[in-house]
């Protein structure tokens, strides 16, 4: 139960941040990605500030947690820290990120904002999330482990 409440809290704060930041708005995301609009004065750099604000908190936060772990601390309601193990570059990382970027650029929606659209704009949100799940299922079906 504690684990569920912890994850719920994290999700709540995440979603609140997305809605406040403007990341939920596909047009605002596209306004950042549209470098071609710079000459005409139509570029919106806000998204870089979202990233900056997130890293300003997460960078020192993660570094602090890493130090806590090194001195023997554990997460509050779990047995250990699950830092991603993968290292080095590979074709899957590059190709997958390139494909993700194409989809992100097409609609201005990435996975977090997509979930917020489920309630902020259900019609678009449900269709996008359903399609995203199909894409994820496609990955599972086409890649052998």
């Amino acid at each position, binding site marked *: 139960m504690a684990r569920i409440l*912890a*994850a719920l*809290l*994290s999700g709540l*704060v*995440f*979603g609140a*941040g*997305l*809605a*406040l930041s403007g990341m939920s708005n*596909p047009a605002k995301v596209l*306004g950042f*990605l*549209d470098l*071609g609009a*710079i000459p005409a004065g*139509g570029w*919106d750099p806000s998204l870089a500030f*979202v990233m900056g*604000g*997130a890293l*300003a*908190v*997460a960078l020192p*936060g*993660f570094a602090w*947690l890493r130090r806590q772990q090194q001195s023997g601390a*554990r997460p509050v309601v*779990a047995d*250990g820290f699950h*830092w991603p193990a*993968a290292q*080095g570059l590979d074709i*899957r*990382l590059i190709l*997958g*990120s390139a494909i*993700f*970027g*194409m*989809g*992100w*650029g*097409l*609609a201005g929606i990435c*996975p977090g904002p997509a*979930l*917020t659209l489920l309630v*902020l704009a259900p019609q678009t949100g449900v*269709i996008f999330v359903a*399609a995203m*799940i*199909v*894409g*994820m*299922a*496609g990955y*599972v079906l086409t*890649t052998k482990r």
Partner: protein
Amino acid sequence: MDWNAFSPVTALAGGALIGLSAVILLALLGRIAGVSGILGGVLQKPDADWPWRLAFLVGLPLGAMLMAQALGGVALTLPAGIGIVIAAGVLVGFGTRLGGGCTSGHGICGLARLSPRSLAAVLVFMASAMVTVFITHHVIGR
């Protein structure tokens, strides 16, 4: 610059909340707040991690709804055309799983832990998205 759209204060504050959320999940559960990874996780056979992942995925839209209510609504301009939405969704779903993360897992958590792998992913998906927008807005669009 589009000075009417530019919103540095809410962008920074919202970003800080997103960063805080990632710190909360790591501090309490020892987990990385990557939305595509967590969503991919609940689509697999239920295991011990299934309940917390689902709770995160339920909390996220709920938090957005509460914030939108507190703000008296948020501006939304949605993509025109169901075909675009479907195609984009499939590409985002497939690509984030193949690439092992999205804007949150690689973009925020990955950069926050200074992962070279995540930095590469961010550079690639940013460049890919920018090229895609350039093509749709300035080559074939408008």
